[in-house]
């Protein structure tokens, strides 16, 4: 027996209502797989906002500092060379590259943070054994609950799933055997 109890849904309304009930039961180790991000589902599941913007800001500033330092160090310290009679540290001319390097590092930081928070790349998943689970990237929504959650009760969950027209209520991967 696998460790994930699951049900598929067709209606976005029903999946949000079911998720809200599961969250209110105090269950935290559960997730909803949807083919596209559903409005309001994060609130129903009690997910807080992402920390990615802070990381993006940090990397953006880091890039900007790196950009201006590179230009300042090469032009004013490592080899001060008079170009067109300008000061060695001619900062107005350094703005474009400072900006570009800031953007570049911000982009890498954002993607890196996304991979970190989503734990990508992921090499295996309980979903890949389950044919109904694969519809969660196509046309259906799926709730899966981990049985290791302290509040896990199969009977209560089955009731919630059935109440909200859950299809194919099952233990993940059970049909393969």
């Amino acid at each position, binding site marked *: 027996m696998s460790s994930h109890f699951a049900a598929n849904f067709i209606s*976005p309304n029903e999946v*949000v*209502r079911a*998720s809200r009930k599961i969250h209110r039961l105090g269950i935290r180790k559960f*997730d909803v*797989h*949807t*083919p*596209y*991000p*559903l*409005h*309001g*589902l*994060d*609130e*129903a599941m009690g*997910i807080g*906002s*992402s920390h*990615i*913007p802070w990381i*993006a800001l940090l990397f953006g500033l880091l890039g900007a500092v790196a950009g201006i330092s*590179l*230009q300042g160090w*090469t*032009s004013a310290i*490592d*080899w001060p060379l008079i170009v*067109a009679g*300008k000061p060695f540290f*001619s900062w107005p*001319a*350094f703005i*474009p*590259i400072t*900006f*570009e390097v800031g*953007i*570049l590092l911000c*982009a890498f930081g*954002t*993607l890196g*943070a*996304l*991979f970190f928070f*989503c734990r*990508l*790349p*992921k*090499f*295996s*998943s309980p*979903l890949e054994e389950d044919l109904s689970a*694969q*519809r*969660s*990237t*196509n*046309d259906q929504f799926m709730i899966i609950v981990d049985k290791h959650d302290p509040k896990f009760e199969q009977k209560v969950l089955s009731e919630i799933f059935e109440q909200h027209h859950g299809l194919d209520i099952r233990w993940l991967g059970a049909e393969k055997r």
Partner: protein
Amino acid sequence: MHSASALAQEELILGTKSRSDITDLVSSPLERFPSKPWWIAIVFTSLLATIGFGCIGWTIYNGIGVWGNNHPAMWGFDIVNFVFWIGIGHAGTLISAILFLFRQKWRTAINRAAEAMTIFAVMCAGIFPLIHVGRAWLAFWLFPIPNQMNLWVNFRSPLLWDVFAVSTYMLVSILFWYLGLIPDLATLRDRTQHPIKKIIYSVLSLGWRSSQRQWKHYESAYLIFAAISTPLVLSVHSIVSFDFAVSVIPGWHTTIFPPYFVAGAIFGGFAMVEILLILTRRLFHWEDLITVSHLENMNKILLVTGMIVGYAYFVELFTAWYSGNIYEMYAFRNRLTGDYGWIYWLMVFCNVLSVQVFWSKKLRRNLIVMFIVSILVTIGMWFERFVIIVTSLTRDFLPSAWGNYYPTIFDILIFTGTLGLFFTLYLLFIRVLPAISIGEVKGIMKHAHPTGEVDDV
């Protein structure tokens, strides 16, 4: 069209489609053998690209003396093509980033193809500075890499800002495009039965499972990418315009260049996106996803940006006259009536006059009209860069230094080669990756989101 309420939302997906219909419709071209028109097109475009690469090889072997560049026209087709291609790319970022920030839902059906087009256009653009430096094998000197001379690059030069701007633009565009592709690659992974495709899609989708806890971070990251790409795209063409505006050549040394170049870039790029989309939707029967309303919206943007460009042409003339500077005045008189005057008027016809047909709703929704206008705009925007670069260089301050510019066959074949490369890459792209964002289109369907559920907690 329901004229009852002018503000009523236009339907973005026609017909009654289920979510799986969308998946089937978008991924079906990836699952069948290419059609005859596709083969004919790719044979032609890859032939052009091959000839172009041959000419590039010949240029590198012989030196850039095989081009028409001379003294005083030291920038010719090479820089015209560079600016042209960079500009084409800008429309893709506008659609994917700026329209996303403005919550324009119609962008979802066209953003994937437009982003791909951006990357291919920037690849074509990147070729030109590389070969234009003459000794392409020393092009790495453009980057601040410690070298045997202990000498650094000149950070005060707009040409160097360009190196940073274009490479950043290229990398960020690729990351943004790939970020958008991850959920669709996961869809394809779960859908395909082919074992080799399954492995490829599994690796590329990085194990994405489209769970809400992942989506939350994903949407956050996507928004940040849109937010940083917006100033980035504006900065890139501004910096390209600095290559000219920071010099002292009459006709180049103007403050209007950055906004003028950005508007022109978006204008020319949108025309190219339209050409590609009109053909793609016909080839793959995507008329219900990329509707005439989508194209109409793009035509409105063409009309607006076309008039911004027209305004810039006018302001340039006015400023030259108002400055009282004889060199400025001569530069513009020469543009209008000199040896290249016919190109100026061709440019005005293509970029300013031809788009005026879009004032009419009937013509704005006519596929043949918009296809012809898009081609005219693409031609016009190429000639605009030619006018800016060549007329100013061939007639600057000293009459003794004047001289005309004539391209050689190598200039022309390298340009058509990049056209071939661009279309070849696009044709390959639409066969191997979903050219419409499957996930995002599902999100704008009717009843896609729960109603009355968000606030009733």
